[in-house]
């Protein structure tokens, strides 16, 4: 009886055909979803989540780079906060982020607003602005390094031609970071510009027409229509650019400045690389990496909380 009852309960879910059970519609959908998600889940697990777990665990060890691991508890974390170069790299990274994230945001938004207009050759400008993004960062770094070299670089010559004495762009510790920021904005702006552009194109034209009928000028139209409706895109850009700027750009730094002069461009990401691959301090480098991930998680959490998950209540 119980078998009959069970078969009745499951209904269409268990058509017995030749001894095989048939999946219900929901079951099949779940299976399909699992198949579709599997490549990403496996990839993320293998190449992101597992390494992150290893990184956190490795942070509690002293690893000599030759397969020997010694558990040292929180020593790497204690060392981190007593390490003046790490503290200085953290300060440099903070300054870098405070300048580059808003800078990149504003430049990308302005470019997106410009190329949203329809004018002859707009396709060319869109491609040209995005082009640096498809070039290898090492190539970009080499080109800019040559252009910014003291005395013989193109930028140097340009300054001299108009009667100005140029500074040492990459050799002066007070200027080198700004040069790196400038180059980073230059090659990243095309990417973020495209994201802004897609956000702008999602805004219905009728809103602008209504604003125009109401007598709004360009600024009022931007402030009252574009800006509020662009908030989800802005949130996405703020979040992704912060993470990208904090964790990327190592190749640019490596080629352009090697963290110098006098550690002035040693961002945390470069310091992690240096500790791991130059000095063989894998445990210490992992501890710094874990610390940085924690900071990014907190920052992302704050952003999500402030913006209600990027939806912005006033937009809903």
């Amino acid at each position, binding site marked *: 009886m119980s078998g009959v009852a069970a078969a009745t309960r499951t209904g269409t879910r268990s*058509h017995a055909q030749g001894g095989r059970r048939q999946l219900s519609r929901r079951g099949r959908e779940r299976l399909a979803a699992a198949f579709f998600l599997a490549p990403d889940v496996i990839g993320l697990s293998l190449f992101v989540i597992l390494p992150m777990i290893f990184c956190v665990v490795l942070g509690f060890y002293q690893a000599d*780079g030759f397969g020997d691991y010694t558990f040292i508890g929180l020593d790497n974390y204690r060392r981190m906060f007593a390490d003046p170069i790490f503290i200085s790299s953290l300060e440099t990274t903070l300054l870098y982020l405070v300048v580059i994230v808003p800078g990149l945001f504003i430049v990308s938004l302005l470019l997106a607003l410009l190329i949203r207009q329809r004018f002859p050759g707009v396709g060319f400008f869109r491609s040209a602005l995005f082009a640096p993004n498809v070039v290898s960062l090492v190539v970009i770094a080499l080109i800019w390094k040559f252009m910014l070299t*003291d005395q013989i670089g193109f930028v140097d010559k340009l300054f001299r031609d108009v009667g100005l004495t140029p500074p040492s762009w990459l050799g002066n510790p007070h200027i080198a970071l700004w040069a790196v920021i400038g180059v980073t904005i230059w090659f990243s702006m095309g990417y973020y510009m495209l994201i802004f552009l897609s956000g702008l194109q999602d805004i219905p034209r009728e809103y602008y027409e209504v604003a125009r009928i109401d007598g709004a000028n360009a600024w009022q139209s931007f402030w009252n229509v574009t800006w509020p409706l662009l908030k989800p895109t802005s949130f996405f850009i703020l979040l992704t650019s912060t993470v990208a700027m904090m964790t990327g750009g190592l190749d640019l730094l490596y080629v352009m400045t090697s963290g110098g002069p*006098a550690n002035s461009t040693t961002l945390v990401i470069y310091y992690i690389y240096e500790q791991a691959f130059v000095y063989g301090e894998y445990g210490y480098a992992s501890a710094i990496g874990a610390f940085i991930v924690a900071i990014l998680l907190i920052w992302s959490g704050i952003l999500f909380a402030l913006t209600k998950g990027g939806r912005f209540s006033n937009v809903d």
Partner: protein
Amino acid sequence: MAPASRGVSRRTFLKGASAVAGAAAAPTLLTGCGSSSKPKELVFWNFYSPNPAVGSPDLAAQDKWFRDMVASWNSQNETKIKLEYVTVLGNPKEATAFAAGEGPDIFMISPGDILRYYSGNALVDLGQYMTKEAIDDFYPNNMQSRLMDGKVYALPMEVEPLAMFYSKPALEKAHISEAELPKTWDDLLSLGDKLKSAKQGPMCFSTAPGYYQNFTWYPFFWQGGGDVVTKDGQKSAFDAKPAIDALRFWKEPIQQGIMPRVEPAAADVITSFTQGYASVYLNGIWNVSGFHYRAPKFDYGVFPIPTPPGGKPTTTLGGWAFVANARGKDPETAAKFCVWALGSMEADSIKRVVDWCIHAKSDISPRKSAMAQATKEGGYDSPIMKQFKNDIFPTGRGEPRYPPVIYKAISDAIQNCQLAGGDPADQASIASRSIDAYLKSYQGVKIT
């Protein structure tokens, strides 16, 4: 019928998943089976051969030297050597490979890295396969950094001293005769002034942070009698006059505007001279062959690194060495290969060193026998090579093998003084404190 045609049974799913997992695991399993058999091929990581971008005759000659050496070994031995080109040794690829237990069987090493690899038990004692005569054949001042507790862990293929290179056309235009070439630090600063007044390319020191910059700074530090650690290796000796003087001297030319903060032409001496971007350059003997092949008609000269008042002429001896990986597939054969290639008293081993130092490159021989033979073959007949051999090399001191923490402390002191206007006394003191803190817990071999 429709649901049946769209459905996938659990058994089918499991079968498929097993197949995918099996396919993914197969290469690993097969590799595992393969590695249990006796290795017939050892891998030699180097940055000369097979060079994918051989364009100039000097690179072609170096590439050929490596190929000939390996071909000769392979024709005589059952275990073969395979050359593998890596762009720069000491890079993340090498570090990652060793961390994963997949390091090359044979590789090249510079003194800056040797202590780390030795401490990681990654180096074979090569001396156990050498005769005493062969060990004594290597110049002791150059071997110092390759010896641990009297055992030989690396065999140098070359000795590369530093000197000041100068462009004769630039000095002529600045009306500076060869008799006025600098002998003291003050002379060198005065030369920089004259070059600037004559609108000629400046003099250049290394400015990028790294092992190479430290390597080029040490002679200035040693000339005044400096040492990084005390003789017993227990304490820092860095906070003293020689370090402060050397740091100050590297700061002055930048402050006076007679030296660029970033080296021109990606620190390439030959391009810098031929294009007029620099007139005097602190650099190494390896440029002699570079000039020979790339700018044979360019007129240049060298002079020893100037000294401070009362200082002793000193230069650094750089150069790479062969090492065998103690964690490799067959450390014994790898070590025997290194010794066969560079460290035996057989005629072909000595000849190989000669060929490398005077035909493939322009270097000082690390072995006395090879030096004698190279001299006989005319390798040091040119005025510049003769000057390197007779005047500069004898003042040389092997590149030190400081651990990363010590290297970094010194590097920061140099960078902060040279480019950030730091006070030399303060910077020497800061570096010294870092070194002392490190030495308190250091338990490895003696730091030299």
